[in-house]
């Protein structure tokens, strides 16, 4: 609940200028479910089913983390570059 509140406060301040990078950043952050995926795959008594599901989950989510952060960085860099020029 607290996090939601903090989240609302923070996002409201973000200018529309940065909405796309913001979204791709939150996307990367939502990939935090990697923690859950690791726990389920790595559980000591993991069944075959949960290993396979967890495997797919980790793959999907790691793809998200990597591409999410990289692409956000790429976008943000473009904003940054122009600022340097001014």
């Amino acid at each position, binding site marked *: 609940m607290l996090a939601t*509140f903090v989240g609302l406060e923070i*996002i409201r301040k*973000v200018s529309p200028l940065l909405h796309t990078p*913001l979204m791709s950043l939150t996307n990367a952050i*939502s990939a935090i*479910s990697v923690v859950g995926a690791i726990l389920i795959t790595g559980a000591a008594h993991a069944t075959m089913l949960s290993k396979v599901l967890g495997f797919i*989950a980790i793959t999907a989510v*790691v793809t998200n983390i990597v591409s999410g952060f990289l692409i*956000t960085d790429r976008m943000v860099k473009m904003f940054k570059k122009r600022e340097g020029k001014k």
Partner: protein
Amino acid sequence: MIPQSVGYIYVVAAALFILSLKWMNSPATSRRGVFAGEIGMLLAIVGTFLGFDVHNWTWIAAAFFIGISVGIPIAYIMPMTAVPQRTALSHACGALAAALVGTAEFYQRQPNASTELGAIFVIPVIIETLLGFLTFTGSLMAMGKLQEVLPQRPITYRNQNAVNFTLFAIALGIAVRLVLVPTDTWLFPIFAGLALVFGVLLIIPIGGADMPTVIAILNSYAGLSACAMGFALDNKLLIIAGALDGSSGLILSIIMCRAMNRSFTNVLFGAFGQIQVKQGAAEQRAYRSAGPEEAASILEAATSVIIVPGYGLAVAQAQHKIRELFDSLTRRGIDVKFAIHPVAGRMPGHMNVLLAEADVPYDRLYEMDDINGEFPQCDVALVIGANDVTNPAARNDKTSAIYGMPILDVDKARTVMVIKRSMSPGFAGIDNDLYYMDKTLMLFGDAKAFVSEIVKELPAKAAA
């Protein structure tokens, strides 16, 4: 169960996520924000490995390897114009992961159902799986529409809402049953299937113009399902990060909805169903068109120009040509500004990213409320591939489907030029009165080709 040190690592990671969002406030600190996010994620992963008794390393390592090797090319190859699709795809991936983890959790605890499958555990898992699967297929649909694999027009049929509602009610019924009697495992696949189907049905009736909102909503769902996962696994970091994500998606969708003067339910269930009927009645009306030379000379004679970019700019990848035009006009001492409507393009902030890619200084980009007062003083408004966001019908035609939607007051400029591929209506399926005004010149053609021709005309005139 969680060692103290991991608790601390998680707190730091959560704090970094919050800071990272906070730093997204301004372009100056945004890179630091991304960096903070990366460190936070790294800490979270490392903390998990250290703090818990993790087995099956080969599986995890292999998954990481595949994920990384797929993720990097995606990030670098994807052109900036395809960012909305990528975002939808990544929502789909994230949601799928959440849903699968939920499923795995459910089955894993099955053997000791009586002790481990209490309502406290099952309810979050159910929510997680529902939102996860729903967002998965929904995002895939959204991506299909953005990529134009699927028709952008809303797909509607009779009793659509009734069908959707029934499906949802059944899913809900099964969910309740699963919470009460968690040993009924056979219900679980049905539940998952219903969620998948529901995701498809939810998105197909939504038109291309509403995609920014939809993406924001899906963003929020993906976050919420991560949050639910956090409750199921009793993991605070997941709860916090999920909630952050959920709320940011929510806020964005509210902003988008406000920008279009529509409510959530309207976007989700309304489609633009009724308009298609009216459209047939529209008769052929007269308009004026012009070539690049005429457009160039009008632009040259102006002292202030406002450029209104839209989705057409993204499709034609015309952002670099626009930049040339911007440079060329600015050199002549012409005041050039960009007016960005909140829902221009296919996702929030889409236009800003494109123009940023082409190096247009971001202090020349103006938001709707800041620039609307300037249109009456502006000589030329150049609309590039934008349609519904400039339609004066939103202001004065009460019967129009977009009535009340805040628009850019392009029609108040002294001259209006519209670059467009044809006279066809925009994605909302509504004819635009702007095109038939006396002061409007239609410039037909691909945005990129046309702008570059204008640019070519400009230096020639200067030399003469």
